[in-house]
């Protein structure tokens, strides 16, 4: 029995391709935006693990970096931060 080696040999199949932003720039859904105070951040990485959108990247030194293009502004990071280093601020415009 032989198996297809490449996608061209596959029968015609509807296939979705992995894309960052498959639903567009979801940052536009946001009304409040999380702002990190890096001087009080303890680099515990809790905000990173609890972010449902993966919009928080963990830097080399474990401090968080928020991607505002995709952050939906749910506020979980601000609610879970043990030292309250993340605050939610109202979006202008």
């Amino acid at each position: 029995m032989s198996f297809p080696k490449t996608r061209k040999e596959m029968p015609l199949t509807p296939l979705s391709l992995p894309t960052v932003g498959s639903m567009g720039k979801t940052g536009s859904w946001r009304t409040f935006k999380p702002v990190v105070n890096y001087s009080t951040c303890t680099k515990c990485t809790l905000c990173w693990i609890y972010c449902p959108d993966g919009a928080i990247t963990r830097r080399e030194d474990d401090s968080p970096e928020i991607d505002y293009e995709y952050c939906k502004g749910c506020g979980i990071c601000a609610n879970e931060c043990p030292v309250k280093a993340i605050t939610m601020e109202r979006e202008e415009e």
Partner: protein
Amino acid sequence: MVSIKELPREEYLLKGHAACAGCGPSIALRLLFKALGNKVFLVVPACCTTVIQGPYPYTSFAVPLQNMLFEATGATASGIAAALRIRGLEDITVVGWAGDGGTVDIGIQALSGAAERETNFIYICYDNEAYGNTGLQRSGATPYGAWTTTTPTGKKERKKNMPFIMAAHKIPYVATACPSYPTDFVNKLRKAKEIKGTKYIHVLAPCPTGWRYDSSKTVEIGRLAVQTGIWALYEIENGKFRLNFPSDRLVDKAKRKPIKEYLSMQERFRHLTEAEIEKIQMWIDEDWEYYRKLASSEACV
């Protein structure tokens, strides 16, 4: 025990997906990929996750994924596991990822069949206690008293105890988890990956849209569910029942928070009377008496 900082930085659930803000199941999905990496093959029936993927021809999943009919998760996973075995690709973990409707109501027949055939796969039910993506209808996993669009005065029946139904299939591993306790969930997934046979993990995934609470409280509500005892974290390994941290500290009733704290945070329970809350508390205490007996005895589930 794995610590949060040991988890990999790679993301296989790409940002910009279509889940609601504060989605509990998305946290569980991210943890799934943190635990198993990208050597997985997902089978997803109709559920919120089909929405999270985004519209064709794009998807937010950077792993192979097969969409399937509502009732066929177990059957499809059986087929894929067999195909991978024939091709010698047995380092790939087949994961059935279904919502509570697709597990406890519609998909139970296919899942039961797959468990009986001892298909080598992990079945994960992420439980948001209603049919979320079709507009919140009642499911078999909706708890007593909860408002949904088809139970406008609150559900009158109790939640189906799915982990114990699966344990009755004599499968090697059954566990419950909650994304509010990420290391516990990751440990259980990694443990399940090493076991051969059907593994079942039931994840309580709070849903801000359906449970009617502020989106920032998702993790807090999941934690409260465990602390009040309405959701217990346990595993059943070859029939042996064991409570996991922090549920193992909550066997004594005095250590559990009153259930009112959990119910009052969610608008779906706001019509409940004191008598009904009392009844729910009584049921929880009964359940814990059962857990205590199971955990302290040699008997198998």
